[in-house]
């Protein structure tokens, strides 16, 4: 097992073009499962391909363990990668696909057979060994891809959105499977996804990427509870945090932020001017029209069963509230909202977290 570290990695596909990775530095601990989370185009897959050696970085260094692997070909890095379409060789059976990395070297045949059967058993693929990739479900294909990566016992696993094409149940199953596999192998894993639920459930740490920059690196709790900026706040969570632009005024009785139809008292001292106030939907409470921080109009009600999302309009600013059960509100209705002061997040006009 090994740690992975990216040091000031910049990647440009066209000389003079926009960098896809921008002076990216990142350390992944030995045996850690780090999730690279970001919207499409954020550079997360490129970062993964640089680590794998499929793309050379334009500048910067990549270390795996003690070694500088920046100039090494993929074969010499001892990493395994699972691709988003599973990339199983269509002309080979499942057994041959899993054995493929081993057959390239000098592993004795008997040992290959044993390892293939072992890993297939662990991933529940024993019955599928003699089938062809075309005969498998998408979930089974990803399992085979995982088995093909794991069979070599690499120091680092790179996973590029392996669950993106799966439907609900298969996704949940394989997610759990991945967690177990990580624990069992104790391998370093770097997992790319755009799905914040996957990131929250799988990752020991999450690196949120945007436009080739790391916006925040931290545990899932840190990322959720203390987003480093407005982008991370909005991106993490379903739906993301409400971030309302407003103006703060400091008076004797305390500071208030006016945003849309809301006037929110905030525990900030001596702040005047433009500000962004963030609040998670679950911390927006519905109340009587005069009991809260302002009046809003109900736009849409989405019932999820255990909870209901109520989309509100606060004087032109969209505001989402997540409330348990089925609230008695209807679109067009005017109600009030209450927000607990200690649940508020503050970002300056540029989006950087205040305090």
């Amino acid at each position, binding site marked *: 097992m090994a740690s992975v570290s990216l040091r000031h990695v910049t990647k440009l596909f066209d000389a003079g073009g926009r960098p896809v990775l921008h002076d990216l530095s990142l350390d992944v601990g030995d045996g850690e499962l780090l999730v690279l989370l970001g919207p499409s185009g954020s550079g997360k897959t490129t970062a993964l391909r640089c680590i794998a*050696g499929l793309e050379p970085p334009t500048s910067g260094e990549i270390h795996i363990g003690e070694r500088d692997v920046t100039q090494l070909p993929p074969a010499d890095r001892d990493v395994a990668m699972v691709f988003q379409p599973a990339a199983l*060789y*269509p002309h080979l059976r499942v057994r041959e696909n899993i054995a493929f990395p081993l057959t390239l070297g000098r592993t004795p045949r008997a040992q290959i057979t044993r390892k293939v059967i072992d890993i297939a058993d662990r991933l529940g693929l024993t019955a599928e060994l003699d089938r*062809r*990739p075309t005969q498998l479900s998408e979930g089974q294909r990803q399992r085979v891809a995982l088995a093909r990566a794991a069979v070599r016992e690499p120091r680092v696993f790179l996973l590029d959105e392996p669950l993106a094409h799966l439907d609900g149940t298969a996704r949940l199953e394989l997610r759990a499977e991945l967690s177990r596999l990580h624990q069992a192998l104790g391998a370093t894993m770097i997992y790319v996804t755009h799905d914040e639920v996957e990131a929250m459930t799988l990752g020991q740490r999450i690196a949120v990427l945007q436009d080739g920059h790391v916006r925040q690196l931290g545990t899932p709790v840190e990322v959720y509870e203390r987003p480093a900026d407005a982008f991370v706040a909005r991106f993490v969570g379903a739906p993301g945090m409400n971030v309302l632009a407003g103006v703060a005024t400091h008076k004797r009785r305390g500071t208030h932020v006016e945003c849309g139809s809301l006037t929110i008292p905030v525990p900030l001292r001596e702040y005047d001017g433009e500000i962004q106030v963030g609040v998670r939907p679950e911390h927006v409470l519905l109340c009587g029209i005069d009991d809260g921080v302002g009046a809003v109009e109900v736009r849409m009600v989405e019932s999820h069963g255990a909870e209901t999302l109520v989309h509100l309009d606060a004087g032109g600013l969209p505001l989402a509230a997540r409330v348990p059960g089925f609230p008695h509100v209807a679109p067009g209705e005017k109600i009030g909202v209450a927000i607990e002061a200690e649940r508020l997040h503050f970002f300056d006009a540029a989006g950087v977290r205040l305090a």
Partner: protein
Amino acid sequence: MKTPQEKLRFALVAGLLLLGSAAAPLAIAAWTSARAERAYAERIATTAAEYLATVTSPARGGGGSADYDLASLLVRARALSALPGWSPAVEVYHGTAPFIAATAPPLTPDAFADLQRDGAVRWDGATALAPLRDRNDGDVVGAVRIAPRRASRGALAGLALPALLAVLWLGGWAISGLVRARARVRLAPYAVATVVLGIAAAANVRGAAADATDRWLADAQLVVEDAATRGPAQPVDVAARTLQRLVRGAELVPADSADAAPRREHLGRRIRATSMVRLGPNRWLELRTDPGEEGTTAWVALAVALALCGPAGVSLAAWIARADARRRRETLTAWGFLAPATVHLAIFSLAPAVFLVYLALHRWTPGESGAPFVGLDNFQSVLGDPLTWQALGNTLVYVLHVPVAMAVALVIALALHRHRSALRVVRALLLLPYAASTVAVALAWRGLFRTDGGFINATLAHLGVAPVDWLGDPRNALLAVLIVAVWMQIGYQVTLFLVGLDAIPAAYGDAARVDGANGWQRFWRVTFPLLRPVTIFAGVTGVVLAAQVFTLIYVLTGGGPARATEMIATRIYQTAWGDGRFGEAGALALLLWVFLFAATWTELRLLLRRERHA
């Protein structure tokens, strides 16, 4: 078909189709046998008239009179009708007076006037009238009347009657089944019975024609033998010339003794109907004519085709009656779209293919009348010809350029695939030889290969290599042809491989790289297997085209020198247009087709085992 009216309408249409298609081949058989019988009557009437002109004495008195001695004509005419074995009913007229049966009605003046005017056989009611000319072969002075018999083999002879009954029964059964919407309606037995009926009718067509020829031969043989005994004894060849006038349209040639009965003989490339004429002890003539049945092939085909219209029409009518309006409209529209391609295929692919099969089974040379059926003789002579085997060997060697070109093309394609910037220009350049006309390419290469001052030999001379006689030396010619072939093929195959490489998702290569595969392993274990469909396509089409190579050889070497570059296709061409043996050329073409079919089938079986992409 739901309402009674619809059912009735369908039953009427189908019944008419059934009866019409059953009657058509029989009508053809009846008509053609009547035709054969009329042809026989015309011919034997002419022969009889010539016989009388030959054997009747001249009129006494006026020396060198052109007219006949009437007493002699009377005797000869009666003797003719009494010849043992003579088959037709005959009457001879001098002027308009009947000679054989004195009580028979005279020839009408109109008929006689017509004969005098036309001087050719004419039909008077149901009988043939041949003009009887005077001794100088001048004026028409009388006539010979022959009444044709009813055809010896009627339209319903042999298998035709049971086949007709089977057609009516099975067809009626199928139609009633369709009307009552029975679950199991079988049109196949009806169709089979129809084909049998068509073949039986066709057999009767041939039989009647053959029979008419045989009877003419037998009757002509009688009168020729009789005429020969009445004249002075002559050498056989002189007699043959003298008697030739009796059998216009046939030949008399001196021959050795043989069976006297009419029979068929293969003479050269033709089949002739012959019978032996005995002039005296050991003095024989052979009487030869074209067999009537050889001209009936078209009628045979027509009889079978018309018969098949029945089941086809009934099933079409059933479909029209059953399908709803929308299906009918859609099907008609679909056929509307398909029709141009179907017609094109039928005219330019199917018809030549059918003609090829016909050619291969017959002995046909343009300009010669008749194409006798020879069974598998053409195949036998083609397979026994060492030139065929030499051409086959050369073709096999030539076909080997395909895998060679493919290997080179694959290497080039892999190199180009990596350097995409060079691709566009190079792609266009590579396709040029393939797009250029083969004739132009072959002519250009002939220039390059020239022994004196050709580019290749000039280059070799610079390198200190002695000039090579590329196209003139049998040892080099095939190699030279192969070089040109590879040069022409390679661009096309590179293009195919490039397309194939583009179609392989990059993820496979990436996965293999991360898994630790080096370049060679990536190619052999991932890229090449994934290129399989392209390889199969390039290989199969390449081999099929190469095995039929013609233009390149024809222009570059003409198959020479010393047949060193003779291919199957040039052999076919040479056999047909050079030697005029179209039947053998057809047989060779069919053999090539069988060979290609077998080769392609094997190739596909070997290669297509796993072609599907994930």
